[in-house]
């Protein structure tokens, strides 16, 4: 579903953000991307979204080499890859319902599909009762759930999460992780970058650790620190 082959990324100024990265993620896997700040996690995600291009190597997403993706095919990639962020990126002038519906409208889904899908997804994230609220009336956890609903409503094959719990308290973190887990169980590949050791240790999923741009650890049922299963 996701494959990095000998990927190297050097930014201007000769900083090697990633070097010789090889990662192969199967359909339906849940992987944690861990490592200190500046280890290359963000670059890893940016490459997947085609926001940056690798200096060398190949990146395969959903069976397609995105390294040489032409400009006009980019939207197709983005439709296959849902994304959530630490800062949610919700539109403050739109309600919860409108925020989620927006993601379907702008890729041209017909109105009746939007009307049937949005309530379903809001139910999945447990916000069906708050669909007419605005983002600033919600807690951080609720806002993150809206952004998950928005990322998931178009049924992407892959869900990328960049520090999704970075701004949340422990209770809200658990709620968000439950939703990500159930989305993953339904068949979506999830790739989550995080600093939060407790989540990683509690979930016991695959862990890929980056350090100075290199993969230093790749464990099937890993912990945040050393000591998981090879």
């Amino acid at each position, binding site marked *: 579903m996701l494959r990095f082959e000998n990927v190297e990324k050097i930014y201007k100024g000769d900083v090697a953000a990633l070097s010789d990265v090889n990662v192969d993620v199967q359909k339906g896997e849940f992987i944690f991307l861990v490592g200190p700040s500046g280890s290359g996690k963000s670059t890893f995600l940016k490459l997947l979204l085609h*926001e940056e291009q690798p200096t060398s190597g190949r990146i395969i997403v959903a069976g397609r080499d995105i390294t040489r993706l032409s400009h006009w095919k980019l*939207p197709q990639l*983005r439709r296959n890859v849902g994304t959530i962020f630490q800062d949610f*990126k919700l*539109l403050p002038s739109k309600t919860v319902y409108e925020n989620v519906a*927006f*993601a379907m409208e*702008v*890729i041209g889904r017909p*109105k009746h599909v939007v009307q049937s899908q949005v309530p379903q997804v809001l139910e999945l994230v447990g916000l069906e009762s708050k669909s007419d609220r605005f983002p600033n009336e919600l807690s951080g956890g609720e806002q993150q759930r809206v952004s998950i609903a928005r990322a998931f409503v178009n049924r992407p094959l892959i869900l990328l999460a960049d520090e999704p719990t970075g701004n949340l308290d422990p209770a809200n973190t658990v709620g968000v992780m439950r939703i990500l887990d159930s989305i993953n169980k339904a068949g979506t590949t999830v790739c989550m970058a995080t600093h939060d050791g407790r989540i990683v240790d509690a979930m016991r999923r695959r862990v890929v650790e980056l350090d100075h741009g290199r993969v230093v650890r790749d464990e099937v049922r890993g912990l945040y620190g050393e000591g998981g299963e090879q």
Partner: protein
Amino acid sequence: MWGRIKYFGRETVISLRRNLLMTIAGVITVAVSLALFGGILLLSRWVDHGTERIKGGVRLEVFMNVEATDGQIADVRSSLNTDPDVKSFRFFDKQDALAEFKRIFRKDPDLVKNITADALPTSYRIVPETAEKTSNIQNRFEVLPGVDDVATPEEALRGLLDATNTARIIFIGLSLILLMSSLFLIVNTIRLATFARRREIEVMKLVGASNWFIRVPFMAEGLIQGLIGAGLAVAVVVALKVGFDRWFNSPNGFFREFYLTTADAVTVSIYVFVLGIVIGLIGAIIGLRRFLRV
């Protein structure tokens, strides 16, 4: 499909309203520059019609007698062909003369109705090698058999033609400068609009909205500014056409040979509209260029 059109319409209107002052500034500059442009085109056509006879450097007209024989007409032609002072000439037969007569006296239908081509003289319109040769040629051809008169069109008319040509260059230059500034204003309005909606655009890109889907509302915004500006300019063009008809309609006045047809006004209006659309769209494209790099 209908849903999309509604979406684009709503987004465009919201955006136009959000930058109302910039929008108005853009529309006004487009209108002023296009009105200037249309006005000068119209004036040029008006003068073109009025100075048809002296266009291309024609300084002499050799009018034959109405009863001149074909032989006499041919003799004059061969003299013109061999005359060293004549640069070029054009023959006007009776039908051409009738067409011109009808045009000049279009406000006098009775006169036009009673005339036939046979009653009108044929003529040669002559461009001399240099302006100074005019009187030489006049003297030589006046005396040829079958020649009725050699006329030299009024100098005032010629001065007007020169003045118009100068004015045309100045005004077209001026309207080009104004068109440039209206283009920049539209570019700026679109940039502001994209900046105001940068969050929406970010989300759209994130969820995979196609580039044209993101662009359309902004293109429509530029297009509408261009169109409204062009619409105002066309109103000015129409008003000018009506004004020209009303101010210069004396049958004996200096401008009796000057006129504008409805077709002239329509053609100029089309130019103005097309230019308005082009400016609006190009402005939008330039305004969008920078931010749309993903």
